[in-house]
């Protein structure tokens, strides 16, 4: 299977073509079959390829497979090539297996929706593009996947196209992502211009051989701009909360577990460039830590169950960027993996809650669901403990490693290290707080919905609970298993090219005390949530709104960032566009039209000679002959 690497993205793509072309006609059973076979097939093929790779390359060398030459122009050369290396394999396992689980879940969740075939066609296409992104052997193939997942994200956010908000949210995601893609593209152009290649291996090699610092910093910052768009970091995070307009499994797969982590993957993939550009790393770390805290504060005061999780995702992505920003690339990827487990579990759990509540997403109308939907409750609780960072659950190990690395990073000045650690720790406190608030408000207390909703409450079917149980299990043991004896760190070691003085691994000072501090922080957050929401329920939110109305209103309205962007970017842009349309365009149009008017006027003049009267023509002929004679004589 190793020699047929291209088969992995191709399988879901075939699923997309079959479902897209014939799904509507051949019915639900066919669509379900195609979707599940193609995704589980990709997962199985990917796993087999990974085992074969490990058998053939135990040292973790890069295995590159060129499918065909894409284009050659002068010295610029690009292949459509796929590669396997330890990092690709980590991503491959996460994407294919979680993707397959979520496909399975979707079968139950989407069973009663219109456009069942359309949904699975898009979801298969997404998986295919995501696999192109992580298996691509150079930045150009990666960019193809990068754009492909963006397209699928757009299509799936706007899946409920008959509503007002869903297509608008899709458009917003697409436009905001364009800004990031612009940065990515410029970075690739810079690579071609100054390094002569976009191949991952060659770029790292040539960068390490010695290039101007400004060039590396520019490339890294532009790549980070791309990552900001895709992975929802300040200032481009605004699309992700709106993206919750899509179906819930989509939020779990695309907007939590896989696509939004593409930016983290890309930076880990470019680790050689970043290690050579510490300035860019500092930017990444600071942006990551500010995003982590900023999004967490908004998450504290949202009432839509999916919005809370969306801001949580933005915040956790911030943690990943802290990881890769301080030079602990392994920790960043580690958090990416554990986050994929527990956040997918949380989103699927929220989907199960929404399913049980007949479509209700407002936690103010929930409450007391613990006994009604026990499997969902237990899996949700486990994932919450994991994200809050209690040992020995998954999130504890990765988050602790990130924050520990932030303090010990050799790449950042001391002040920045403490700042990043501090912001990250406060964000971790908020994480525990808002997640347990969500749990207490949703699953504890009295039921606050309508009588009809209460009557309809039911546990979800097996296709939905099985993925929940699998993911909850992974959230429990996944972190411990990967951290045990530094399994993941050893596995990923080969992806860091040796660069003198720019080590990829560094010892974390005071690891045990920091672990205890992290646990205490999580415990404080949980305790606060317990005191406020377990005991008082919604009343706690109201008293907060009364005691500090300004902060409460700010959090509720997402700190007015959307309004700010509206005022400083969208409106002026509209004004400028209007100006160009009404004035500049009118002038240019006028010039073009004037040419036409000149010709028309001349024609008007000339047509007086076309009288249609034969004798006039004869007279002209006669006069012409006279003039002719006069001239030649």
């Amino acid at each position, binding site marked *: 299977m190793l020699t047929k690497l291209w088969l992995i993205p191709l399988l879901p793509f075939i699923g997309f073509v079959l479902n897209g072309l014939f799904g509507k006609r051949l019915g639900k059973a066919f669509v379900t079959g195609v979707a599940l076979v193609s995704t589980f097939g990709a997962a199985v093929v990917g796993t087999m390829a990974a085992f074969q790779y490990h058998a053939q390359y135990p040292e973790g060398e890069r295995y590159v497979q060129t499918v065909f030459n894409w284009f050659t122009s002068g010295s610029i050369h690009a292949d459509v090539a796929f590669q396997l290396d330890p990092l690709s394999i980590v991503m491959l396992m996460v994407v294919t297996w979680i993707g397959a689980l979520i496909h399975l879940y979707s079968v139950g969740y989407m069973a009663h929706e219109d456009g069942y075939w359309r949904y699975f066609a898009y979801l298969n296409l997404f998986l295919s593009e995501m696999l192109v992104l992580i298996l691509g052997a150079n930045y150009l193939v990666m960019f193809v996947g990068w754009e492909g997942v963006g397209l699928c994200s757009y299509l799936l956010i706007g899946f409920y196209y008959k509503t007002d908000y869903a297509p608008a949210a899709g458009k917003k995601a697409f436009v905001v992502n364009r800004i990031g893609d612009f940065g990515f593209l410029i970075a690739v152009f810079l690579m071609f211009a100054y390094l002569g290649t976009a191949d991952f291996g060659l770029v790292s090699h040539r960068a390490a051989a010695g290039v101007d610092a400004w060039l590396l910093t520019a490339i890294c910052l532009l790549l980070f701009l791309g990552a900001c768009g895709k992975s929802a970091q300040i200032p481009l995070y605004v699309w992700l909360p709106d993206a919750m307009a899509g179906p819930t499994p989509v939020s779990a797969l695309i907007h939590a577990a896989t696509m939004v982590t593409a930016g983290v993957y890309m930076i880990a993939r470019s680790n050689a460039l970043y290690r050579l550009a510490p300035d860019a790393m500092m930017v990444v770390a600071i942006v990551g830590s500010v995003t982590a805290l900023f999004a967490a504060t908004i998450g504290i005061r949202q009432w839509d169950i999916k919005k809370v999780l969306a801001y949580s995702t933005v915040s956790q992505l911030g943690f990943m960027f802290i990881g890769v920003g301080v030079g602990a690339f392994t920790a960043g990827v580690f958090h990416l993996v554990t986050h994929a487990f527990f956040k997918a579990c949380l989103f699927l759990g929220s989907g199960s809650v929404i399913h049980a509540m007949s479509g209700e997403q407002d936690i103010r109308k929930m409450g007391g669901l613990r006994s009604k939907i026990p499997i969902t409750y237990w899996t949700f609780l486990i994932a919450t403990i994991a994200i809050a960072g209690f040992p020995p659950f998954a999130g504890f190990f990765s988050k602790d490693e990130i924050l520990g690395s932030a303090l010990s990073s050799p790449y950042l000045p001391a002040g920045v290290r403490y700042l990043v650690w501090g912001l990250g720790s406060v964000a971790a406190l908020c994480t525990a707080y808002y997640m347990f608030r969500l749990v207490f408000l949703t699953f504890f207390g009295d039921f606050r919905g309508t009588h009809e909703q209460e009557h309809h409450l039911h546990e979800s079917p097996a296709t939905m609970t099985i993925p929940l149980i699998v993911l909850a299990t992974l959230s429990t043991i996944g972190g411990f298993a990967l951290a045990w004896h530094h399994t993941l760190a050893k596995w990923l070691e080969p992806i860091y090219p040796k660069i003198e003085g720019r080590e990829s691994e560094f010892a974390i000072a005071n690891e045990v005390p920091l672990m205890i501090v992290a646990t205490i922080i999580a415990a404080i957050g949980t305790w606060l949530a317990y005191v406020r929401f377990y005991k008082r329920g919604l009343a706690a939110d109201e008293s907060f709104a009364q005691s500090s109305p300004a902060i409460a209103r700010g959090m509720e309205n997402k700190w007015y960032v959307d309004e700010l962007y509206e005022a400083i970017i969208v409106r002026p842009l509209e004004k400028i566009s209007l100006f160009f349309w009404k004035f500049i365009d009118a002038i240019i149009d006028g010039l073009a039209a004037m040419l036409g008017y000149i010709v028309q006027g001349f024609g008007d003049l000339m047509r007086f000679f*076309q009288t249609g009267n*034969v*004798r006039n023509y004869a007279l002209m002929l006669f006069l012409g002959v006279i003039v002719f004679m006069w001239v030649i004589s």
Partner: protein
Amino acid sequence: MIPTHYFLILSAVLFSIGVCGVLTRKNGITIFMSIELMVNAVNLTFLAYARQFHQLHGLIFVFFVMAIAAAEAAVGLAIFISLFHHKETIDVDEANLMHW
């Protein structure tokens, strides 16, 4: 012998009458006859010079001109018949469909 320039003057007079006829008359047949007049004025010139220089070229040319005039008459009359079918008149001022 009659001097050649007599013929030329007669020819010029005939030609001018023909031109005036073409430019002033409305009736298609009359215009047609005027054209014949112009053609024959030219023929007269040819013949006058042929006689003066004792050469056959002019005579042969006249035959050609007469043949072409006959062909022209055939086509022209056919056009006028067709015009008459459509308009019930052969007044050329009525045939002004191509005007602006």
